[in-house]
């Protein structure tokens, strides 16, 4: 795989480059994964009960959870739309690049982070799993997905490092 790079242009746009076939497959897998119907364990992790009070939890499930799901869906759909605009990179053979507006970066970060959590929840991944040396991972599906969680962490770090001037959000 090539080195994936994320940079900001003077007009604020993001440019993701170094996208070879491997990265293209991994990135395209994010919205595809999130569009799937998730098992209960994943839903419980993404939308946990906020309190021990069942009345509040019920209100939360009825009022807040659908809003969050709609927001997350908008985020991964935005990522999918951006990915559909990928173009050949004139500066790097056999690689593609992708430009997207500044205000799409948060949606990408949300979708990538959510995909990691979905994979982790599906396989009940533990702290020990995440600190296991990569060379110890096997070809089993669970280990494959743990490796994918690490690869997506690399992409997530690119977004966090690139966005050093993230503005604060107020209540």
């Amino acid at each position: 795989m090539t080195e994936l790079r994320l940079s900001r242009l003077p007009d604020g746009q993001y440019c993701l480059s170094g996208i070879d076939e491997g990265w293209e497959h991994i990135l395209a897998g994010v919205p595809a994964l999130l569009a799937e119907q998730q098992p209960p364990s994943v839903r419980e992790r993404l939308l946990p009960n906020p309190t021990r009070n069942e009345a509040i939890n019920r209100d939360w499930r009825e009022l807040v959870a659908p809003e969050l799901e709609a927001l997350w869906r908008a985020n991964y759909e935005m990522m999918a739309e951006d990915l559909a605009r990928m173009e050949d990179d004139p500066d790097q053979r056999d690689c593609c690049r992708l430009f997207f507006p500044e205000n799409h970066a948060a949606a990408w970060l949300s979708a990538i982070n959510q995909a990691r959590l979905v994979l982790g929840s599906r396989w009940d991944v533990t702290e020990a799993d995440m600190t296991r040396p990569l060379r110890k991972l096997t070809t089993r599906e669970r280990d494959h997905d743990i490796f994918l969680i690490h690869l997506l962490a690399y992409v997530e770090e690119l977004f966090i490092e690139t966005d050093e001037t993230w503005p604060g959000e107020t209540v």
Partner: protein
Amino acid sequence: MGTEIHSSSPERLRVRAATTTVDPGTIETVTEKTKGDLAKPWNVVVQNDPINLMSYVTMVFQKVFGYPRQKAELLMMEVHTRGRSIVWTGGREPAEHYVRVLQQYHLWTILEPAEQ
């Protein structure tokens, strides 16, 4: 995040439901009790999980609460080493708002009465 949403707090909606479905004598009692409940302090608690990156959690605390990086990192380390951290304490409505926003960022967040 990509799309900002402004939700109704469940608490506000419950107050509204109560005031439209019971007789006038009951309305006063229910509303007073709810107002008292709203005034009590609540803790916003973030719990550890093995997947969220330390850098991501720190960034979220900075963005959501406006905390300086050092404070955000201290809270993140508390989550990581102790399994949980109280990241904000205050009235129930803003506390619910913070829980919603932190869950929006996929942090494992709960709300608990501060006096517990």
